[in-house]
């Protein structure tokens, strides 16, 4: 057991080091971008005086290294600072957006993960027969089309023609859960189509791999039903690679849906980040970047831990 705790501690420490490196990279990246904050905020209608005033107020005249470390110090104390552009508290506005993003990701995951795994199981059960071929064809086709195109096609038919679901998915606090779910139904459907294929194919491949084993043959010879064999014997033994892919896709649902958010006008983190990148609002970009990195690293860590727990051989390394 202590070995397991040591392993976990190592993983977490490694994650924190990675996060720190990511913060340096993001900061360096934002420094390379052309243009400066004051000009980007005031736009084309800025006078030189107004620009100078804003640069001074925002502390842009300090050396970059000093700005970086004072920000990092604040971050470690839980203070994300205030946005350079709007003067709002970052933690507060970001929290709301992160909530929205997680809301969308949650519902997309709730639908897509069980669906992908079930479809994968069905594909194995009817391997090389028409259900398998149809599932693969449909999911591979949907992953091959760019997501914004699927989104526009969905908007045209479902929103504009049939008027079943809204194309603008701006959710707000005044809505009930039911209204919110109806509002986000289209982006959830599109996201499901986008992540389905990857998870389904991995489930199929991982289980097929296990199906070659001797104990599966034994189970068959015992006369178990095919679906029972897959569900009770093959699936638990192939859970590690499946969890890995599921986590990767869930991370994508949180950090990679900028395009979907823009097309459906969804008030999530992606849009929030893009708005601030275009205004060179470095504290916000840093905070978003770190949160995205943390989500990615965290979910991958969970995947690792689940694989370790699911496989006794990994639990007791020599």
């Amino acid at each position, binding site marked *: 057991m202590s070995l397991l705790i040591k392993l976990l501690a190592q993983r977490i420490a490694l994650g924190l080091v990675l996060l720190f490196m990511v913060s340096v990279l993001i900061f360096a990246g934002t420094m390379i971008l052309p243009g400066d904050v004051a000009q980007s905020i005031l736009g084309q209608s800025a006078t030189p005086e107004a620009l100078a*005033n*804003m640069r001074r107020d925002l502390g842009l005249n300090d050396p970059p290294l000093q700005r970086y470390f004072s920000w990092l110090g604040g971050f470690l104390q839980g203070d994300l600072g205030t946005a350079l552009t709007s003067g709002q508290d970052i933690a507060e506005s970001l929290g709301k957006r992160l909530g929205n993003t997680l809301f969308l990701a949650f519902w997309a995951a709730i639908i897509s993960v069980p669906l992908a795994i079930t479809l994968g199981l069905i594909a194995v059960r009817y391997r090389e027969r028409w259900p398998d071929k149809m599932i693969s064809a449909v999911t591979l086709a949907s992953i091959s089309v760019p997501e914004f195109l699927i989104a526009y096609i969905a908007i*045209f038919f479902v929103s504009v023609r049939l008027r079943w679901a809204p194309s603008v998915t701006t959710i707000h606090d005044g809505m009930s859960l039911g209204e919110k779910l109806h509002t986000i139904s289209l982006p959830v459907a599109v996201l499901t189509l986008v992540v389905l294929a990857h998870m389904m194919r991995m489930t199929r491949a991982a289980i097929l791999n296990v199906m070659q084993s001797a104990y599966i043959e034994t189970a068959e010879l015992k006369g178990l039903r095919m679906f029972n064999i897959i569900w009770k014997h093959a699936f638990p033994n192939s859970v590690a690679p499946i969890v890995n892919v599921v986590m990767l896709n869930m991370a994508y649902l949180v950090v990679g849906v900028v395009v979907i958010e823009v097309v459906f006008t969804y008030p999530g983190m992606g849009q929030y980040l893009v708005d601030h990148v275009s205004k060179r609002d470095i504290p916000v970009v840093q905070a978003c970047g770190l949160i995205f990195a943390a989500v990615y690293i965290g979910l991958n860590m969970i995947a690792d831990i689940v694989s370790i727990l699911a496989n006794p051989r990994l639990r007791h390394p020599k």
Partner: protein
Amino acid sequence: MTDQLKYLSRQVVTGRINRRHFLGRAGALGLTAAAATTMMNSAVMAAGPQKGGTIRVGLQGGSTTSSLDPALSSNQTDWTVSRMWGETLVELTDDGGLEGRVAESYEASADAKTWTFRVRQGITFSNGQDVTAADVAETLDRHAGEESQSGAHGILRDIKDVRTDGRDVIIELNTANADLPYLLSDFHLVIQPGGGKSAPDAAIGTGPYILKDVDMGVRFVAEKNPNYWGELGNAETLEILVINDNTARVAALQSGQVDMIDRVPPRTAGLVARAPNVNVRSTSGPGHYVFIAHLDTEPFSNRDVMMALKYGINRQEMVDKILFGYGSVGNDSPVNGYYPFATEFEQREYDPDKAAFHWKQSGYDGPIVLETSDNSFPGAPDAAALFQQSAQAAGINLQVKRQPNDGYWTEVWNKRPFCTSFWAGRPTQDQVYTTTYLSTADWNDTRFKNEQFDQLLLAARAELDSAKRTQMYADMGTLLRDEGGLICPMFNDFVDATNDKLAGWADGVKGLPLMNSYAPMRMWVTN
């Protein structure tokens, strides 16, 4: 047939075909003249305003990084929202004149150096406070002050002193300016209690609506201000959704989620207009898409090179292919018929022979590099390619260099010698010239330095006699058109759209898009 008629009557409204033409075409479709006239008029008029209901508006431009502080207002969403909760001293009328808002009346001294604005009696801010002359003076002070980051900072630079006297605000200028009230109609200069010095983004003003729900860059909800003094505001509730993606904005209108949108892309406007429940509204304005050259840089300092380029551009082709007809040809002047005191010049046409003549005359035969990006104006790279083609016919070697959207306004515009750009226009000729073509202007993006032009500009600004002023502006226009570094191929129309639930659209309103951004407040929901 109905669709076709609807299309035709819309063409009349937007001034693309005239009434006689409409009647002829309608007759060909088998309609009697009387019925056709009724139909046309019903497209133009509607039965008086109705109160109540909700108007939902989809706008571009809004961003999470924006602020409710009107001083930092920089896009359609920002200023539409600030017009809902606040008002300026004076505002443009539909035909480009002026009317008092927070100011009840105003007058100038004979030398146009001292202006007196009388604050409207009995109006209150949405927090219940009375509006005083001091509030107005403080507002001007906040925007004009040395510490100011206001977008209106530049236009207030000439103010020497602001003082109050009872309900009067008295503004002293360093130099005479007959256009001061126009400057004060600028959308940044919303009158706020105490000038908004303590809480610039509190959104407390004298406007027809009060903001109830604010999510910057996402959604704004406003309700009718029960104590508003004026006529504006028909719907009980306004909901503004920020929809920056063009396709998403159009889809939102088509699917009935919003009633009104701004900036329909010209490329798809024709298709959008075909939908039975959508009206595309096109308004000509002062905005223009331009190619600008630095006159202090080789080879643009050579007048023949500039003339070759001016004759080597096909303006009509650009209006057809870049604006898809939603616009008009430019004439190498930033001023069109939109402005008061404007005069017509002979239209400069595409003439490869003259261009080739000037090109040879100049003695220069190297390449000309034109820098462009998609956000300098929509379709700018395509326009640059068209320019390249038309110039090639005159033997001019024009090379197009594509730049990233990001940072274009800081790294390319006003820095590189020849690039594409966009100007939204200003309410008066004086402002246009002062902002961009005066020798000492911050944004003299063509490096146009002409002493005679500067003198005329200052003289015209102080001139209260319209005939003399018109003549001065005509002379300045000629100078700029012949000597300037500005190649202006086209003026773009504002293309907005509303659905058929709304009535009360007025055509040809001057100022900003969507009826100078008052459409949400002036239109109404029909039952």
